[in-house]
Each structure stands twice: as C-alpha cells, then as structure tokens.
C-alpha cells in the first residue's frame, strides 16, 4: 500500500475551510510558531462546534498581526496596539459573537499595554491570544517588553538589561478570568487552552511561547526554530495553578507552562446590565439580550 501522495495545490488540507486559501502561503518565516498557533485555534474552533459566522478575529500590527488576514472569519487588521479596544467596540456592538484578539507581545503588551490591562479589568468577554516570541520580529528584531534579561536584539546589542513583563501575572492581576501559557510545541494542550478560553465568559488570556528563528534565535545564536522547539521540550515545566509571581521567563532557563487561572466573575455586559437594573428596575431592557427589535 502506497501512501505517498505528493500532490500539488489541488489537495485540501483539513484546516483549509478556516483559512483564506487565496492568501496561502503565508508570509511567515520557516519554523515560525504562528502557523502552528493558527492550527491550534482552528482546531479549537472546530472542536467547540461554533457557528463560524459568529466568530470574529481582531489583530494588531506585527508578525502576529497578520493572523487576521489568514483566518477565514470576519477578520480585522487594525492599528498597532489597538486590537483590544477595536475588539471591545466590536464585542459591545455584537455581544452574541465570539471576539478573539490574536496578536503579538509587542502589540498587546507594549504599545497596547494600557488597553490590555483595562479590558482585563472590565472583564470584557473576549479571548486574547498573545503569541510571545520575545522580540519585535516584523521590524527586524528589536527589544520587546518580554525580552529576557541578557537576550540580544537589534536594539539591545549587548544584551537586554530591562526587567521583562511576566504576562500571566499581568493578565491575572488585571482581572483576567482565564490565564494559560503554553509553547507552540504543546500543541494539544494549547488547543485545549484556546478552546477553554473561547468558551469562558469574560476576559481570557492565552500566552503562546513561539519560536522566531529569523530574529530571536539568530541574534541569540540559539540555532534554528527546531532547536527552539527542542529547547521548549526539554525546559518546559507544566505547573497548573502555579504561583504567578514565579513564572517569569529568564533567558534560556525553565519555562513554567500550564493553566494558571480559571475563575468565575461577571462580565462587563453582565455588570452593565446589573448596574442599570439596580437603578432603573423594569424600565431597563438588558443589553445584549435579543428583544426582537433589532
């Protein structure tokens, strides 16, 4: 029995119905973790059996910002750092839809940091998938707020000396109700995490540690993207519910991964409705509930 079927583009990959095939191949480098993360999200959406018409994806700028352009969903490629507030507006206009922000560490946490923490504080019902490659890749490998101390980048040529953000701690302390971190290698656990995050009402956050071979690995002489994957394999420590003060990422040391936070808290729209109901009583028609008049 021969299983070697080497067919050109006419073949249909099972994830194609979630991809804009007229834009594939994508622009990302070989061994980039973004394609893998998209597969995880696509699988999660399939497993959740959601109506894909009711899912929107919003991205900012950067390598990960391009995700919106490849996913066959209502997809929005916005400005640098503003994916979260754009998604907030979209979510409030269409609370019946699932809003997923898919963006990078620089976009979400540096230029968009303020939006990130405030949207987490409000517990707006959205899922934020942050692909963390420790560097600004699209612009050529500059130091990021996630770059580990001593790691080199094009703007920290002698090694970074700034304290990086601990993203799960930031998200959790800002109010996120679901926080997980996995690497692109933990593909099944990552898929489960994305699935849980999308299903979770409220602000859910999944950090994905992803290899960047062209910049992060090259500038730090860490080998290829495959070598980074091997590093994740050997150095990831699964610790569900870990003390988030201890999940900082140092340069080429252990990476604590797992599901850290999974709590219940009323969402922004639930709070909005509750607050107004308290004051206006029956005169108030709860927002985001179909009254059959729109």
């Amino acid at each position, binding site marked *: *029995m*021969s*299983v*070697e*079927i*080497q*067919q*050109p*583009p006419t*073949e249909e*990959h*099972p*994830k*194609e119905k979630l*991809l804009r095939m007229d834009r*594939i*191949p*994508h622009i*990302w*480098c*070989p*061994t*980039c*973790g*973004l*394609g*893998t993360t998209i*597969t*995880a999200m696509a*699988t999660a959406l399939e497993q959740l059996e959601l109506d894909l018409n009711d899912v929107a994806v919003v991205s900012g700028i950067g390598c990960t910002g391009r995700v919106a352009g490849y996913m066959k969903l209502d997809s929005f490629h916005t400005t640098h750092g503003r994916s979260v507030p754009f998604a907030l507006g979209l979510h409030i206009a269409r609370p019946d839809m699932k809003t997923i922000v898919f963006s990078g560490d620089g976009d979400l946490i540096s230029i968009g940091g303020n939006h990130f923490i405030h949207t987490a504080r409000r517990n707006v019902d959205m899922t934020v998938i942050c692909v963390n490659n420790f560097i600004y890749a699209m612009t050529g490998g500059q130091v990021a707020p996630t770059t580990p101390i001593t790691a080199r980048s094009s703007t920290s040529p002698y090694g970074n000396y700034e304290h990086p953000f601990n993203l799960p701690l930031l998200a959790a302390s800002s109010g996120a109700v679901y926080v997980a971190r996995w690497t*692109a*290698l933990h*593909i*099944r656990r990552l*898929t489960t995490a994305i699935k849980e995050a999308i299903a979770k009402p409220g602000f859910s956050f999944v950090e994905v540690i992803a290899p960047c071979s062209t910049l992060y690995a090259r500038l730090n002489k860490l080998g*290829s*993207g*495959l070598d980074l*994957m*091997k590093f994740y394999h050997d150095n990831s420590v699964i610790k569900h519910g870990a003390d988030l003060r201890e999940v900082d990422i140092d340069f080429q040391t252990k990476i604590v991964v797992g599901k850290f936070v999974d709590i219940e808290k009323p969402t922004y729209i639930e709070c909005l409705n509750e607050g107004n109901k308290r004051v206006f009583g029956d005169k108030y028609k709860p927002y985001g509930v179909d009254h059959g008049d729109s």
Partner: protein
Amino acid sequence: MRFWRIPLDIDQIKIPRGELHIIKERCKGCAFCVEYCPKGVLKLSDEFNAKGYHPPEVIKPNECVNCDLCEMLCPDFAIYCLRVEECQEEVPVESKK
C-alpha cells in the same frame, strides 16, 4: 519501554492507521513533522520544492498511527493525515515482541 504494562484488552485494540498527505510546495522545511513524529514515519527528502526547501517524505508508510501531530505542528499547513479505515496488514506492536 519494556517496563510498560501490556493492556489486558490488547487483542481487541485496533491500532489506528493514517495516510499522510504532503503538500510539498507549501513546505518550508522546518522539520517539525520529522522531529516530532512519534513513529519516525518521515524524513526530510533530498529533493527541492519550488521555494528551495526540502519537503519531508514518508519512509515508513505503514507505521503512521494517525496521531495528527505532524498536521498540528506544521506551521505551513503542508502536511495532513487521513485516517485509514481498514487495516490491510497487522503491524506488530512493539510491546508484543
């Protein structure tokens, strides 16, 4: 491996079988599929695709267990696995040896 218990219902378990499909022209040669295939089914081939990468090739077609790991790890949507319903030949399970 030899310390693993042999399941009591080993005789009734059918090992799933998969058929690999490689879309060579999409491949960027990252080798994730080759590295992480638990059964060592793949290797990078010597041939080049149009982009100049070496796409993987199937070297042990009968050992694919349809675990989908290659499909999920592939960053370029260039490989996928389809379940083969009927097993044509019994593949010896390692633990039986």
